């Protein structure tokens, strides 16, 4: 049967979600295998080497670099408090001494006899990794971190900003076509993850920020408005490190686009549940999409999960979404996948798919289709 490899975003009502929680460098794992964890539990901890400061003691004391080691008050490896003397000249008959104080609390790392520089290192920086989702520790990677596993609703967005966040899910839009407007955001939404329909304006998002909403999930947002939130023009879709109270997850793209019905219905079904979201997006090799994870309670797990054949690609009957103008955002069913190249209006010769959208068959380049992966 004809098929085509097409990327797709996951919209799964029940899925085994595994999350690696790994330290940036080796450290201590704080939990044991099979332990139950909540999102705020610290699962691993380490210390990054402190920042470095360099002081040219030779220049500061007006002495030859070869003499610097002699005037240091302590040996390499010693600790200094902020303001403590680190070097002092002998002066003339014990008078007119010059000295240098430690600018920070630090350890003396090295002394150069060529340039007169000394290297001082700050105290180590503690780093902690939390569990992010509710679940169990499926695997412990000694000194590195853990893998947390949970049965959950798992939805991927197309683009997001802001890193990991969490809170109770509140679907505030009546339908997937409805815009999430500023007046719909209330003080009681602080710390919650709000779900709108097709769009959120800059003004409404700013209100969400001011109300300390944990996250917003909507269909679309205007590309130009990102600049005001981020403080720079987003040239390359690599996000996640922004310091935002309210993470934003777009399920469809830029512009006003109604949320996919399966996505909206699934979120609505889980209104009130505790949810973890992550706006981090990286569209490069090793793509990362934003995500919404809603851990399921044992009574909600039906066990009807069947492995989704991601590599099967689209086939006649597959549900697909058009991801480029002129039919952007429309959802349809694949009727056929003709093997020969076809000429588009742009005269580009491409492989196409025939798609049935609202009872009308349309010819769309396969590259402009996204599989709607459901379970």
């Amino acid at each position, binding site marked *: 049967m004809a098929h085509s490899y097409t*990327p797709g975003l996951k919209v799964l009502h029940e899925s085994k979600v595994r999350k690696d929680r790994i330290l940036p460098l080796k450290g201590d794992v704080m939990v044991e295998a099979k332990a139950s964890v909540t999102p705020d539990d610290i699962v691993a901890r380490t210390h990054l080497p402190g*920042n*470095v*400061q*360099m002081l040219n003691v030779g220049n500061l004391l007006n002495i030859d*670099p070869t003499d610097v080691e002699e005037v240091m008050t302590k040996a390499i490896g010693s600790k200094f408090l902020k303001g403590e003397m680190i070097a002092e000249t002998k002066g003339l008959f014990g008078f007119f001494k010059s000295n240098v104080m430690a600018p920070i609390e630090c350890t003396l*790392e*090295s002394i*150069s006899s*060529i*340039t007169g*520089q000394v*290297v001082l290192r700050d105290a180590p920086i503690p780093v902690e990794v939390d569990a992010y989702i509710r679940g169990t520790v499926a695997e412990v990677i000694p000194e590195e971190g853990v893998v947390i596993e949970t049965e959950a609703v798992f939805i991927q967005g*197309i*683009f997001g900003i802001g890193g990991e966040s969490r809170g109770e899910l509140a679907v505030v839009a009546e339908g997937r076509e409805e815009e999430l407007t500023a007046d719909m955001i209330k003080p009681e939404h602080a710390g919650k993850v709000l779900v709108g329909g097709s769009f959120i304006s800059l003004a409404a998002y700013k209100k969400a920020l001011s109300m300390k909403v944990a996250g917003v999930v909507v269909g*679309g947002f*205007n*590309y*130009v408005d990102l600049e005001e939130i981020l403080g720079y*023009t*987003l*040239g*390359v*879709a690599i996000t996640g490190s922004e310091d935002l109270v309210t993470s934003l997850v777009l399920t469809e*793209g*830029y*512009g006003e686009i109604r949320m996919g019905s399966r996505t909206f219905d699934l979120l609505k079904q889980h209104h009130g549940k505790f949810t973890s979201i992550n706006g981090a*997006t990286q*569209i*490069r*090799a*090793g793509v990362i999409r934003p995500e919404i994870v809603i851990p399921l309670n044992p009574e909600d797990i039906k066990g009807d999960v069947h492995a989704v054949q991601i590599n099967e690609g689209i086939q006649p009957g597959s549900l697909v979404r058009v*991801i*480029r*103008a*002129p039919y*952007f955002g429309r959802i349809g069913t694949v009727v056929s996948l003709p093997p020969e190249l076809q000429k*588009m*209006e*742009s*005269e*580009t*010769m*491409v492989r196409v798919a025939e798609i049935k959208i609202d009872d009308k068959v349309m010819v*769309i*380049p396969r*590259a*402009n289709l*996204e599989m709607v992966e459901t379970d």
Partner: protein
Amino acid sequence: MAGKKLKTILATDCGSTTTKAILIELTDQGYRLKTRGEAPTTVEAPFEDVTKGVLNAIMEVEELSGLKILDGDQIIHPMKDDNTGVDVYVSTSSAGGGLQMMVAGVVKAMTGESAERAALGAGSIVMDVLASNDGRLPHQKIERIRQLRPDMILLSGGIDGGTVSHVVELAEILAAANPKPRLGQNYKLPVIYAGNKKAQDNISETLGEITDLDLIENIRPVLEVENLGPARDKIHDLFMEHVMAQAPGYKKLMSWTDAPIMPTPGAVGSLIEMVARKENISVVGVDIGGATTDIFSVFQGQFNRTVSANLGMSYSVCNVLAEATLENVLRWVPIDIDEGTLTNRIGNKMIRPTTVPQSLEELIIEQAIAREALRLSFIQHKSFAVSLKGVQSQRTISDAFDQSGSGETLVDMMELDLLVGSGGVLSHAPRREQAMRMMVDAFVPEGITQLAVDSIFMMPQLGVMANIENAEMAEDARKAAVEVFEKDCLIRLGTCIAPIGKPKPGTVILTAEFELPGEGKKIVELKTGEIIVIPAPYQAIKAKLTPGKSMSIGKDKGEALETEIFGGTVGLILDGRGRPFELSTEKSKRIENLNKWSKATNEYPDTELLGGA
């Protein structure tokens, strides 16, 4: 010649998304491309072995050529008989982000720039240039090094016998940062020292233990001389030994190839350099990709390469918009379009980078963005491809009014002979006229310039072929690279003839006489603001070009030029828009002109249908 004659050559290029294989055969007409195959690159999970993608691409070549190349997962080489195996197998790679380097020099505009040139010339991406005078405090430099995690560092500084302390200070900063390599935790970061010879002992003392240090010849032994060769060679060696050896599957791939694997842009650059040297011409080559745009140039025998890291057509398309401004992109669009809708559309291309333009409107927008990406990349290139800075030159009284000095750009558009375009938006443009127009509008060639596009982007493979050092194969492989480049890789679009000067409206700015093959003499008058296309095949055409009084075509104003030019798939394009070229700021006039030029060059089906004019 040395060794036996090569009959078949197999070459692959492992890109970050696709692995492309080409098969070259010796035929009655010399070396020709027999067939090509491609498959997704398999560096990342779940495969994590680059050779799987290579084998898949070769399998496609096997199917299309009928030649048996693989024996299980081994490439049969040398050739066993006429139907089994290949004589040589070579490969390039940019998978896993290519080669990422950090360079350091004492003075940013001197040794820093030389180090950057060496790294770029070797095909790497330069993540940052550290210099004693870059305005950053030591702790800021240290923080930056720790943040970036390069694949290797090139440290230079000082002329031989000069001051030692500045370059040692840079080494101390590196030592304090104690950088870790990007790939693999179990090896030390390679550092190449190519600075003041006198400082070598001190550098070894500072960096010898914590890094994998190589000491080589100074990149700038005296101010007047730049010695990039040894640094470039060392970068290639280390790329193989360290970076490639850490990437999944590369050890196996390295054992298959008959010559070292080269970084993709390094191979393309060496091919461009070779063509320029062989023909004794000035060349500009461009490869516009999804994330980056690479520009290569050879002027006055000097090779330069720049990478505009975030000017591309998909992953970084929004950055083109940010850097060029929406206004500059829109000036190439002959239709009225709502700005909000347009920015959202471009944003959607960034987050869904693999989509293709289905409608004509989408294609026009994409090609407008390409013009700006090319234009900006070329501006960056021009400011980098300069003569050595800091060189004292003797001046006579006659030079007193000449502003040229050290650090002037080498790029001279009037001197440029050949402009080669490559990358999806140029190579795969539905009409070749579109590729020609994009290049003419973005690079604004002056005088007489030949234009060409790479048919299927096989320059990397040809580049690595041209670099085989094994004496038995080198001569044939180089010959094959040149022949295939000429016959199968380059699609000659034609020649652009653009008089320079600011012409008055309505005047004739060029009278051209051509001896067209099979057609005889043709005389054409080019008026201000016009573009005329004369269909002509890729053959030598005698031409007499007489510019208007205020215009020049390479000689003095108004002076005629008799020369030989070449046609191509598009033909001869006479550009009467003047140089410098500026679009009208008046919207209706601009749209009218765009439609006029589009019609004259047969660029788009009929843009007026879109409601433009």
